[in-house]
């Protein structure tokens, strides 16, 4: 009888490897706990960074939108009181904003081709402006001083001024805006006078429209009209050329009412009696009392709207205490929105793959921390078990089975660590978001989907990291001759 037959050793299935991995992990509860904890922290860091980025983005974006809406409402109030500034008209013409163009077409009595022509000119002016803006500061100061492009164009209508400009460009050896001197000269001498005339026509038209509104509602201020719009207000606006179908009168009236009350409060604050009483009550030095300071005081625990309402009524301004609280909430929120929104408009789409550069670096860093930490934990877990691996091999385990055990163990640890890490990271991200933004923290369905995606991705990353980190050392261990493995201690 031969000792070694042609038979091959049976490779046990994954079920047995899983079972051994599990019972091993349970026995080394503390040790595997540490590995899981490291994985958990790594995943938590990743999740937290991703989610915080998403939340920040969503909040900033929604704040920016709200601010923009408020600004537009404010602008709307302004547009019904006085004509749009030439700069604003120019921007609208260049941008092809259809509703504004419709208004301007009516007020300026413009034909389609004329409108297209001035739109083209407006674009060229903005193009020239952006070139001049891009010049080094000292050169720009010599050419323009602190004039803007429209002032400059008006100034260049005098031949002497334009000659001076040409001379300076020559001296500084600069390029002319647009396609060289001839092209720019055409803008200054041909296109600008035509546009300027159109702008004047639009201004007159808008003035007339405003006058018409006043005549339609004699004795009522425009602000009062906006707070309580009469039934046929939209029609009247349409008739005089305003694009009224674009206006949300509900929101506009709400906004106008807040603004009106704030203005009344601010007017009252300038009265000596109110001013001194409030300063004493608020216990601040003799500073200028801004309305926002009063709002902050009202929102604080010391704030007393009842008392303030009484004080204001003594000087003839009637604002109910509840209304004062409402004003404080509204304008503090709007103040915070300004802070949150920042200057740059955020991009529309927020996704985990479109986070800004600084965040990407942070995530990359988080990845590195993950890899180092997990690799170390796995290396330790494998090396401290070389004897066990060697014993297993003495008992007839195949290399593949040993590998499978470790890979399963790593995957389980990665899974558990990943789940806990996601919970922890989510909690941290939301806690931090809440501390930073308070009630402004915004969750849209799109962001929730992205957050879920981030969590899922982090789980996969956690498991992959654990497995990848375990493969190296366990491959080495599984391939060693049993006795060599036993010697490594």
């Amino acid at each position, binding site marked *: 009888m031969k000792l070694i037959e042609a038979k*091959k050793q049976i490779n046990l299935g994954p079920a047995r490897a899983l079972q051994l991995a599990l019972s091993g992990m349970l026995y080394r509860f503390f040790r595997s706990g540490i590995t899981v904890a490291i994985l958990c922290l790594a995943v938590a860091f990743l999740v937290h960074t991703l989610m915080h980025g998403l939340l920040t983005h969503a909040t900033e974006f929604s704040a920016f939108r709200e601010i923009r809406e408020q600004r537009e409402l404010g602008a709307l109030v302004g547009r019904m009181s006085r004509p749009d500034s030439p700069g604003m008209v120019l921007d609208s013409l260049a941008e092809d904003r259809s509703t504004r163009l419709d208004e301007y077409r009516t007020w300026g009595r413009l034909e389609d081709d004329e409108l297209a022509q001035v739109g083209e000119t407006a674009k060229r002016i903005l193009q020239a402006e952006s070139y001049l803006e891009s010049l080094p500061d000292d050169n720009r100061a010599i050419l323009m001083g602190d004039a803007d492009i429209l002032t400059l164009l008006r100034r260049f209508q005098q031949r002497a001024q334009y000659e001076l400009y040409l001379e300076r460009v020559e001296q500084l050896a600069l390029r002319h805006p647009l396609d060289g001197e001839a092209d720019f000269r055409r803008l200054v001498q041909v296109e600008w006078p035509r546009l300027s005339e159109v702008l004047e026509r639009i201004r007159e038209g808008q003035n007339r429209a405003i006058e018409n509104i006043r005549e339609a509602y004699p004795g009522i201020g425009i602000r009062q009209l906006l707070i309580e719009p009469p039934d046929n207000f939209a029609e009247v606006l349409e008739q005089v050329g305003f694009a009224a179908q674009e206006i949300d009168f509900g929101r506009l009236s709400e906004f106008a009412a807040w603004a009106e009350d704030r203005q009344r409060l601010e007017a009252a604050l300038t009265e000596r009696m109110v001013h001194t009483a409030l300063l004493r009550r608020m216990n601040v030095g003799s500073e200028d009392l801004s309305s926002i300071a009063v709002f902050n005081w009202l929102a604080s625990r010391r704030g007393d709207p009842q008392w303030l309402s009484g004080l204001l009524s003594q000087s003839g301004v009637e604002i109910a205490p509840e209304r004062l609280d409402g004003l404080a909430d509204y304008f503090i929120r709007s103040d915070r929105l300004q802070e949150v929104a920042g200057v740059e408009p955020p991009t529309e789409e927020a996704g985990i793959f479109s986070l800004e550069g600084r965040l990407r670096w942070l995530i990359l860093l988080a990845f590195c921390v993950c890899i180092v930490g997990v690799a170390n934990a796995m290396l330790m877990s494998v090396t401290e078990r070389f004897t066990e691996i060697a014993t297993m*091999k003495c008992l*007839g385990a195949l290399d593949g089975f040993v590998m499978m055990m470790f890979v399963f163990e790593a995957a389980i640890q990665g899974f558990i660590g990943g789940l806990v890490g996601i919970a922890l990271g989510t909690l941290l991200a939301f806690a931090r978001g809440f501390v930073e933004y308070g009630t402004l923290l915004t969750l849209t369905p799109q962001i929730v989907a992205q957050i879920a995606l981030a969590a899922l991705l982090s789980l996969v990353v956690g498991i992959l990291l654990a497995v990848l980190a375990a493969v190296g050392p366990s491959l080495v261990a599984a391939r060693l001759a049993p006795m060599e493995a036993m010697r490594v201690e």
Partner: protein
Amino acid sequence: MEQTANQSATRTESAPADQGRDRAVIIRTLDLAKIYGEGETATHALQGVNSIVYRGELIAIMGPSGSGKSTFFNMVGALDSPSKGRILIDEVDVAQLSAVELAFLRCRKIGYIFQSFNLIRYMTALENVTVPMSFAGVSPEEARRRGMELLDLVGIADRWDHRPIEMSGGQQQRVAIARAMCNLPQILLADEPTANLDLATGESILATLQRINQERGVTVICSTHDHRLLKMCDRIMWIRDGMVERVESRENIKIKVGTIGGEQA
């Protein structure tokens, strides 16, 4: 050095001649050498060992620590590969075997017993015994039944659900013996099985090994410092400085027992 090796080889060959040439050879080593490290720092653990182990015998391997005893053991058990020379187990060269065939050999043909027991810490006694059976494809029920039988054989059936940490050294070594026996191996390799045990326990472990050898006809190769083994074994092989010093059968030892006792004391 060559000559010494050849001499010892001659003696190895001649020794069984006295005992009876009808016995089959189960392990044969030819000019076996193992070198650890390279160049200046290389350690020659074995320097050309020629030896023969017969089927069904209990052979003791003796020698001071550092003599290459354990290295010889690991080579014979196919746990480590030699630097030079050949090991034939049942006339098959171990070096020719693939990884899978080696695993098959370790699983079913050889049982290992280690100085430090090497039980798997997170498994109970019974689970430790059943692991090699699962590698051999035995069904879990059958493995449990055979495992309990084996634990009974080594006398610790009542501790079957204890973990290694809850057992004494002697009990752990008994579990290790049961584990080594579970796939009915033809060879049992015991590397200083009593070194970590007290005298009485060591003796009972040796008695268990002897019983297995006599009752089941398993070839037992046992390295030891323990002289009580001498009265149980069939032959003794001395290793010194990585070479076989001499090989004697027990009958010859009895005559010289005083000398050996004197040497060691």
